[in-house]
């Protein structure tokens, strides 16, 4: 009797463990799932509409969605509309910027269980492009219009990988850090760094008011430094991958940034992240804010949070400066079973109609240039006019370089080390940074020339 009960227990335990281990690891979405059940729930009662089978009935597309609260609601709406129209269900799985690469890498290793669509920062495609589907033929097949895009979206979205003509992704969001300024304090925004400094100085009267608000944690200082460095005219690297960052211009840019932060920003900004910097501008403490718009707009548009009302505008940096631009793109996994459905979904998400709707409803900064000139959009988002100016001069850092993040993050560390006084000589900070860049590039020097 005891033997039988033990045997029974072992069998049960093994079955449970098997279900736990193997069942749990199965892809949540079987790729070729039959059609019938779920659509039947939503079938309308009216007879006439039931007749025709939808184009992608039963297709399920898994999408890795890089967390972006600004567009999440709109994205879900389009997923529903797309399902209604085509029968293809798009399942969104969210992951923040920090964990998107490990997840995608794991999914790629897992093969079949991978995601059909990726919505990610384009920089991740510098590594993942061998697993992405070239979209040129689909763009042609579906007559997808890219002519309305900003120059930067056209230029920097092509040529990733080993073929200069291939496009692996469609940009959905295009962002660059602009300058927000208080129009009551700064009626006319300056076009030179000298005038910019004068305005920062005029508006600095501690502790009541300061000229500048920035997020000063290491990674956020990169854009501030690049904005000043690029305005001086040099690229980050030579065509044959030698760092230029530790040149005289690099030193000048770094010193300029330190002067701006030390003299015109509230004390302690090096410990601030985006929310604190945004709040400093929105509550009127600082006259300008250099940073990402995603953090500050919710504050400025909320009358309970903002103390400056409508007295703010957006513009580009003086003297042609720009922080590092990036786009959030939609790409397709090359082994997807439904490339056409995936592309049609991408085309729908990013079409002109949705771009306009998303811009009006959530202020989504689309790569479609004409949207910024649309009167309805301008009425809903007056700041789009200035943002367009910033996008016109925008450029990315380390375009196409797979190890871009190994260059990017140490830049923040080096800039922050100088700003915080850990390193007192800007030349030393930049020489160390240049050495780090060289080491990272040496691991796999790209076989194309560096360009911006």
């Amino acid at each position, binding site marked *: 009797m005891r033997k039988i009960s033990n045997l029974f227990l072992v069998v049960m335990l093994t079955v449970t463990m098997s279900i736990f*281990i193997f069942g749990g690891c199965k892809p949540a979405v079987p790729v070729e799932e039959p059609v019938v059940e779920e659509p039947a729930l939503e079938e309308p009662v009216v007879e006439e509409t039931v007749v025709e089978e939808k184009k992608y009935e039963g297709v399920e597309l898994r999408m890795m969605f890089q967390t972006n609260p600004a567009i999440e609601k709109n994205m879900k709406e389009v997923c529903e509309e797309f399902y209604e129209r085509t029968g293809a269900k798009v399942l969104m799985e969210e992951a923040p910027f920090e964990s998107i690469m490990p997840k995608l890498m794991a999914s790629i290793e897992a093969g079949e269980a991978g995601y059909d669509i990726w919505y990610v920062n384009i920089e991740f495609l510098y590594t993942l492009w061998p697993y992405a589907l070239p979209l040129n033929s689909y763009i042609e097949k579906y007559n997808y219009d890219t002519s309305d895009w900003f120059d930067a979206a056209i230029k920097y979205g092509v040529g990733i990988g080993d073929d200069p003509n291939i496009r692996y992704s469609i940009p959905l969001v295009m962002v660059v850090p602009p300058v927000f300024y208080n129009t009551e304090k700064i009626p006319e925004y300056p076009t030179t760094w000298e005038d910019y400094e004068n305005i920062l100085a005029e508006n600095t009267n501690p502790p009541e008011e300061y000229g500048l608000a920035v997020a000063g944690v290491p990674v956020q200082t990169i854009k501030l430094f690049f904005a000043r460095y690029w305005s001086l005219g040099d690229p980050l690297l030579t065509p044959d991958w030698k760092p230029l960052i530790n040149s005289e211009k690099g030193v000048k840019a770094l010193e300029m940034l330190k002067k701006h932060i030390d003299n015109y920003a509230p*004390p302690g900004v090096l*410990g601030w992240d985006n929310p604190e910097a945004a709040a400093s501008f929105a509550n009127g403490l600082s006259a300008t804010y250099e940073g990402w718009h995603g953090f500050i707009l919710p504050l400025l548009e909320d009358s309970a949070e903002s103390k400056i009302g409508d007295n703010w505008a957006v513009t580009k940096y003086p003297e042609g400066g720009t922080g590092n631009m990036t786009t959030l793109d939609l790409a397709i996994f090359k082994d997807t079973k439904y490339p056409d459905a995936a592309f049609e979904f991408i085309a729908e998400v990013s079409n002109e109609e949705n771009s306009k709707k998303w811009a009006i409803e959530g202020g989504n900064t689309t790569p479609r240039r004409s949207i910024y000139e649309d009167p309805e959009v301008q009425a809903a988002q007056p700041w789009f006019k200035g943002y367009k100016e910033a996008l016109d001069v925008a450029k990315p850092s380390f375009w196409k370089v797979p190890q871009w993040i190994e260059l990017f993050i140490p830049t923040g560390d080096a800039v922050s080390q100088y700003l915080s006084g850990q390193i007192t000589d800007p030349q030393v900070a930049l020489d160390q940074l240049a050495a780090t860049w060289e080491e990272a590039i040496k691991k796999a020097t790209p076989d194309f020339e560096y360009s911006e």
Partner: protein
Amino acid sequence: MLAENRRWSIIFLLPSVLFLIVAYVYPMLYSFFMSFFSYSMLIPGAEPVFTGISNYLSIFNNLAFLNSIRITFIFSVSAMFFQFIIGLFLALVMSANLRITGMFRVLMLVPMMITPVVVGILWRNLYNSSYGAINFFISFLGIPPQTWLGSATQALPAVIVVEIWQQLPVFAFILAAGIASIPTELNKAALVDGCGRMRIFRHITLPLLKPAIIVAFLLRIIDTLRIYDIVYMMTQGGPGTATKFLSLYIYERGLKFFDIGAAAAQSWFFLIIVLLIEIYFIRLILRRGTAG
């Protein structure tokens, strides 16, 4: 009968052991294996290249990594020192059987119940140089506003304070349990012999508390050396590299740069250091056990 029981025990244990091997032992062995390779997963088409012990040797030339070790140990030692001193005091208060002891114990646990991410955000706001509560309160003492997390010299102490605040109950409760286990007869006998409170504490309580102290340190060392979430939320390793602890550094190398070989070697190096410290403490416990 014994043999049969043994067989069944093995059968019952097998699933768990298999699970542990798959989920725990295999990844560890694999990471050890990878630590002898150069492998940057960011580079499309890159393959692991065997480089022997070069990843381990490069640790000693890597100033950023060595700096992270230094910061991590400063953090760990300082935090534990203050946690021990304050924790011991609180343990004595808790053992005093006062009317408020129950309430006090519950309140003590509150910081530990808050998730590290929330703790990070909470203290980030408290330390805010412009509107933070800490600057507000120190102004009453005539101290000018400080930049705290925005200063390369103040950020590390600021993070240490948060660690002390949140994990203090671990020390306090372990030590309180240790005090409770000391036979009261010893104290009574000492009192009869004319010992003062201080002498009782020094010659009876503290020596008998040693095992509890060692256990508390043993547990806290592991936690403090691998601190990540609070620091990430508070400073992201800055300003500069002032709070770039080892866990942040290795995470960055492994899961941001995907420099798998180097990150694996650094992790193993770190693990060996932690193991050596742990072995030292475990031997202390065992020695006391044998002596007792």
